[in-house]
């Protein structure tokens, strides 16, 4: 039962509106630094745009999707009105206020520090405080998910928590702990310098704190998509979840191993010891476990749907799948992009292989393929699936929806494959322009132009997505029925406590953070000789 539809719609609309805005910036960035455009006479504009693009796409957009989807899951999976609606609205408005507060200095060119902050670069304090408000707003959601689950558990003692809600709460706990790294960096290190209370900053320590957030934030972005894999896709295509337990193990593994692996982002940093880099590399390898479990379980669930639809033989079930169903299409595209992106990720996490692609366009290609591709295409699927239940109106034009998903998939492949390739050629990331006339770079001109074409396709697809949602707001009313999630082949009737609660897993998540981050942070924090003068950007 979806009662607080306005609340959920507000989150989704703000998320997708911000996404459309940041998408345009992204396409502009691809274009102006390509051989198709003259060099920018003021590169600051590029970094300004890049800061806005990253801040919106990394902090605002996925957080709002996770929150809106989380509220929808809480109400429909638990069949219980959301407890704390006022708090939920307060969290929403905190994000609105924080988003505006952060974006104004960025637009004025006073915080062109990129969304990863990069101290000793220091921008306007309003930018950082705005980001903190966005995070605080999302923590309200974390608390509400926990409270709603507790209320439900009290009313249903010993009953298995529905899978969607179990995964949703796992995601919220992951985010709560993930965000602590960047929050500490902002509150204890950057904001005092931005306010002028200090003039030096320990940039190395700040980077370690940010790495705490930087990798597991990706799994926070990814959790709604994984929930969609398990809880939406099998139902939407007429199948069943192959294994409820396997799904729970996947989400639990994300909770435990997504966190203590972020130092693989600082393989090239001198302030972290090689031993800890290796430990983080080894733990990163563990993340393939939940992903491969998911790929296996979902393929099996989809096979069930194919066989129920009359598919026979080794591969006949694939043909029998409902390929005209947008959710089926989105899943297939998502898995293909996840496969390529994941393979690239194995290179990034390998301590030695990383050296050849560190800080090149390969990295940008990698995270756009994983996040912009595999994850965001499932955000589209979530929106398409949920929209009629939120608006009470039909999404009529399935052909348009399929075209949008195809365009996103094709656009993302055309954008990111050349991006990976030029990365291997050594093209650095975060550059406002490149001298393609030089013989050393001229081989990169064509792939870069290709990726611009991909970016334009993505822009068209993104705008089409918004148009489809807007159109549905004026479509005829329908009775969408109650919003349901997939059923498992063997629905759990009783579950061991470990698969029905989070105590052990949260303890492990925190414990592994201490073992993997405790020493590097303590060693840097207690050294007196590690601070450097802050460099204030755009301060004139």
């Amino acid at each position, binding site marked *: 039962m979806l009662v607080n539809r306005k609340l959920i719609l507000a989150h989704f609309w703000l998320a997708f509106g911000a996404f459309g805005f940041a998408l345009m910036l992204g396409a502009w960035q691809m274009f102006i630094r390509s051989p198709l455009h003259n060099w920018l006479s003021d590169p*600051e504009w590029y970094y300004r745009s890049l800061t806005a693009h990253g801040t919106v796409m990394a902090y605002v957009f996925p957080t709002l999707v996770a929150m809106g989807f989380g509220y929808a899951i809480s109400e429909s999976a638990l069949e219980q009105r959301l407890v704390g609606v006022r708090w939920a609205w307060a969290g929403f408005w905190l994000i609105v206020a924080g988003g505006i507060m952060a974006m104004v200095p960025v637009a004025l060119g006073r915080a062109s520090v990129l969304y990863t902050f990069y101290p000793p670069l220091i921008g306007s304090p309003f930018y950082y405080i705005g980001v903190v408000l966005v995070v605080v707003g999302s923590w309200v959601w974390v608390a509400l998910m926990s409270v709603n689950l507790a209320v439900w558990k009290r009313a249903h003692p010993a009953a298995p928590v529905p899978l969607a809600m179990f995964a949703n709460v796992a995601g919220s706990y992951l985010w709560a702990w993930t965000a602590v790294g960047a929050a500490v960096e902002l509150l204890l290190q950057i904001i005092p310098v931005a306010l002028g209370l200090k*003039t030096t900053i320990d940039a190395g320590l700040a980077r370690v704190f940010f790495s705490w957030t930087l990798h597991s934030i990706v799994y926070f972005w990814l959790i709604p998509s994984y929930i969609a894999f398990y809880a939406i896709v099998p139902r939407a295509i007429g199948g069943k979840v192959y294994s409820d337990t396997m799904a729970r193990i996947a989400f639990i593994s994300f909770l435990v191993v997504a966190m203590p692996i972020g130092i693989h982002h600082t393989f090239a940093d001198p302030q972290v*010891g090689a*031993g800890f880099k290796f430990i983080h590399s080894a733990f990163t390898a563990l993340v393939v476990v939940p992903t491969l479990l998911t790929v296996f379980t979902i393929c099996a669930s989809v096979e069930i749907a194919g066989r129920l639809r009359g598919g026979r033989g080794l591969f006949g079930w694939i043909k029998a799948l409902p390929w005209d169903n947008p959710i089926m299409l989105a899943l297939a595209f998502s898995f293909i992009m996840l496969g390529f992106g994941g393979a690239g990720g194995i290179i990034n996490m390998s301590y030695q292989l990383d050296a050849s692609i560190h800080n090149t366009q390969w990295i940008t290609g990698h995270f756009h393929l994983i996040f912009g591709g595999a994850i965001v295409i499932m955000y589209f699927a979530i929106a398409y699936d949920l929209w009629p239940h939120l608006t009470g109106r039909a999404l009529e034009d399935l052909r348009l929806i399929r075209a949008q998903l195809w365009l996103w998939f094709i656009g993302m492949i055309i954008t990111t494959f050349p991006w990976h390739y030029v990365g291997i050629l050594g093209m650095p990331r975060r550059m406002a322009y490149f*001298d393609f006339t030089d013989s050393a770079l001229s081989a990169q001109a064509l792939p870069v132009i290709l990726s611009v074409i991909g970016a334009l396709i993505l822009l068209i697809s993104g705008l089409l997505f918004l148009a489809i949602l807007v159109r549905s707001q004026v479509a005829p009313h329908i009775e969408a029925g109650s919003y349901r999630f997939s059923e498992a082949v063997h629905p759990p009737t009783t579950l061991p406590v470990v698969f029905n609660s989070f105590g052990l897993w949260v303890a492990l998540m925190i414990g592994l953070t201490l073992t993997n981050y405790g020493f590097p942070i303590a060693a840097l924090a207690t050294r007196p000789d590690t601070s450097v*003068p802050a460099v204030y950007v755009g301060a*004139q």
Partner: protein
Amino acid sequence: MSAREIFNLRNPYFAVSVVAATFFVLAALGGFIVLPYAQRELKFAGLWDVICSAAGLPRGAPSTAAPTSAFKTSNVVLTSTTLAHPSQQSIGNGATLAQRCAICHGPTGISRADSPNLAGQYASVIYKQLLDFRSGARSNAVMTPFAENLSDQEIADLAAYYAYLPRLPAYHPERQLPKPHVVIFGAPLRGIAPCGACHGSLDNKTGSPWLEGQSEVYMKVQLQAFASGRRRNDINEQMRNIARAMTPQEIDAAAAYYASQPPELVRAAY
């Protein structure tokens, strides 16, 4: 629950914790002991040294002495708040001291002698260059004797005074020249950033002067001095690297261009 029940692999809490701890210990053994020893080129004093090194702790200083420089290097520390908010007394005292500078740098800080115009220059620039002249990190037959007799406070006062003066249109601006490519865009493949990224028209990096309306001859000579290594008080070699990578034609064009620009284009320092 008795201790036997807790520490039993049938207890899922205990079993999972054992798996996680085992994985951590194996990873730590690999990262802290096996891999460092596998790298033959690394030299260690013993197992503890290996572990400390892998943990990222600073190791004992090498036995060889640190290389000594054949020349004086700049030891001025600048942050973006060095010299911020000078007092009126400091500016006034600077004005009195500046009488000595007027013969070359002009009574209003605008030079008629191909010396730099100082009126409205960033305080950090004057402060750093005077300190470098005094320490010998930068030398000049005229400037060095002046700087040698200045105290720290007098140098700060002079910096405050000149930064306080209005930026008058320079004495010798000519027609505005077209923008040279190297000034506007730099040359990415030669490691040359756009000049304005540090020198004020796009952004100001602390310690870098604005250049608009300065003497063409002066700027050219300085770029050549950086390129040849005669001037080396840029602590990170940023100007030496850039000047070395510039062609003589680019040096001429950059100097001529900046000399022709009015100083109103320059941003205030932070």
